[in-house]
């Protein structure tokens, strides 16, 4: 009976295409908006992803997320280093400083100050220059997006010239020389990322009594990270998180205190409702259109189980095609937006969730149709 089910579905072109379009649109909305949301959330802890060496991040206990800097005393890095099980601990500066551009305008930059001796926490990928060049006078490394975008110089004709090695700029009224161009994860606020040494970063930064943002620590081999975090907390009174814990802390903050999840959630729910409304309703109408034929099949001896299988097959077919097209369009849009500011992260978990959502839409549509067919009196076939 499968071929009859499929021919009944595909043969009714208008309804078939409406259902597919509805499901494609729903799948596209659900997948794309969720992927953008995931991309945005990933950007919130982009710095942590880039800084892969440390196992444990130590900070003020009141820090709520990665950009919520509550400075510590510089001696805290020494205290952390002295905790049993810590292999090494280095100071890190992270702050927003103003860069003065050649045209006189200002641009806020995300400045990262690395431990002067080890330069631990440097950019994951250097496109030009060497990390060791940061030891040169006034040296900074700028990320490629910032160098070609917000920090690029403008000619009087309006042409933008990217920052290159050897160029200078002012960071909080201090001279800075570009010695390298790096590639980093896009950040949530999309500000240019500037790497320098810790001591130079504290010179660039406005004077404060305390300037240490984080202590990045490495556990000795065989140490349990969670136990070590507890020990650091107990010994220093500071907060200590593993990288994953710090990421979760950051995401939790954005989820709780920003409207982002509600905004994206609303769109995803809308996608789901659109799916139910368009695809579900059209599928139901398709069943109603064919009720006479379902009744005929029933009268001719097709059992309820066979008819239900036919409807499920029809729902599964339109669901698979709609899902595939929706995800395909979402992926294409994601790939095309790779070089733009749009964040887009399509994970297998997201694909699965989207598939479940589409399946749910199809299941709701199928159940409505199945109820109608089950309750159908085969005597309908004699009604003219």
């Amino acid at each position, binding site marked *: *009976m499968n*071929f*009859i089910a499929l*021919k*009944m579905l*595909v*043969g*009714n072109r208008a309804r078939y295409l409406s259902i597919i379009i509805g499901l494609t649109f729903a799948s596209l909305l659900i997948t794309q908006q969720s992927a953008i949301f995931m991309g945005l959330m990933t950007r919130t802890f982009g710095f942590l992803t880039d800084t892969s060496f440390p196992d444990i991040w130590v900070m003020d206990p009141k820090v709520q997320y990665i950009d919520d800097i509550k400075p510590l005393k510089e001696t805290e890095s020494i205290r952390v280093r002295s905790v049993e099980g810590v292999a090494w601990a280095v100071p890190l500066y992270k702050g927003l400083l103003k860069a003065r551009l050649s045209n006189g305008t200002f641009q806020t930059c995300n400045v990262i100050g690395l431990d002067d001796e080890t330069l631990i926490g440097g950019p994951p990928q250097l496109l030009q220059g060497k990390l060791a060049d940061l030891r040169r006078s006034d040296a900074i490394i700028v990320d490629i997006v910032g160098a070609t975008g917000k920090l690029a110089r403008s000619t009087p004709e309006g042409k933008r010239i990217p920052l290159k090695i050897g160029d200078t700029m002012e960071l909080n009224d201090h001279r800075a020389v570009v010695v390298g161009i790096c590639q980093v994860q896009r950040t949530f606020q999309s500000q240019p990322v500037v790497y320098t040494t810790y001591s130079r970063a504290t010179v660039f930064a406005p004077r404060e009594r305390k300037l240490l943002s984080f202590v990045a620590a490495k556990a000795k081999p065989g140490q349990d990270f969670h136990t070590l975090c507890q020990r650091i907390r107990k010994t220093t009174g500071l907060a200590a998180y593993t990288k994953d814990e710090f990421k979760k802390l950051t995401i939790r903050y954005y989820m709780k205190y920003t409207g982002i999840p509600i905004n994206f959630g609303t769109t995803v729910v809308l996608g789901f409702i659109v799916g139910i409304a368009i695809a579900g309703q059209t599928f139901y109408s398709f069943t109603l259109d064919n009720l*006479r*034929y379902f009744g*005929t*099949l*029933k*009268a*001719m*001896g*097709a*059992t*309820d189980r*066979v008819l239900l299988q036919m409807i499920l097959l029809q729902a599964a077919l339109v669901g698979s095609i709609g899902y595939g097209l929706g995800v395909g369009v979402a992926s294409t849009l994601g790939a095309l937006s790779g070089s733009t500011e749009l964040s887009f992260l399509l994970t297998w978990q997201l694909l699965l969730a989207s598939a479940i959502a589409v399946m749910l839409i199809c299941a709701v549509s199928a159940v409505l149709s199945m109820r109608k067919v089950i309750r159908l*009196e*085969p*005597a309908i*076939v*004699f*009604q*003219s």
Partner: protein
Amino acid sequence: MMDMDNIAVQCKSMTKTYGSGSTLVPALRGVDLEVRTGELMMLVGPSGSGKTTLISIIAGVLDRDGGECTVFGHDFKHMTHYEKTRYRGQNIGFVFQLFNLIPTLSTAENVAVPLIINGVKRREAIERACEILSRVGLGDRTSSPPTQLSGGQQQRVAIARALLHNPKLIVCDEPTSALDHETGHKILELLHDVAVGIDRALIVVTHDARIFEFADRIAKMDDGFIISVEKSNYRLTNKKKN
């Protein structure tokens, strides 16, 4: 005294009422009817007299309220929903007023449906459908969709569909109402030739007085009763001709 082996359908004091409460509409008020094997029985009567209700109950697509009804000795009331459906699938053929051919299937596929429902492989079912379509003169239209056929051709497809699985009882609801006089005659001749057999019975509901001559017996219905059952001389006339 009637030989019980020759009885295809037997209804006694059968009743059926639609609606509930104050909107009760009695459709059958105590119908007694006997249809024999090898017989073409026509049910005639005005609209609302209960003809369609009667064949719906006989065909097992509607439950009666009271009385008795057996089809080849089987009482649908004593069957489960599943058993009833399977019995219909194996023993009853349907010809509908509006043909009820699935427009997205080809002619052969439409005819093959009862066999496919009964578990015959698709290819074999379609081969057999093509054979029977040749018998009804549509061997060259097997792959056409029903929408490309005339009314008479569509009814012939419906008859082929009703016959393919060799059912014992065939019920036809107004099979000629959508057809012109000449086509209606041809359809009835075809039905009579291919459907009425020694171990088979045919019940035709109709308003169409032009086809009464094809009946072996005619049961007249009015207001939920069978008011008369008369013999027709079609077979005798035909035998004399032959």
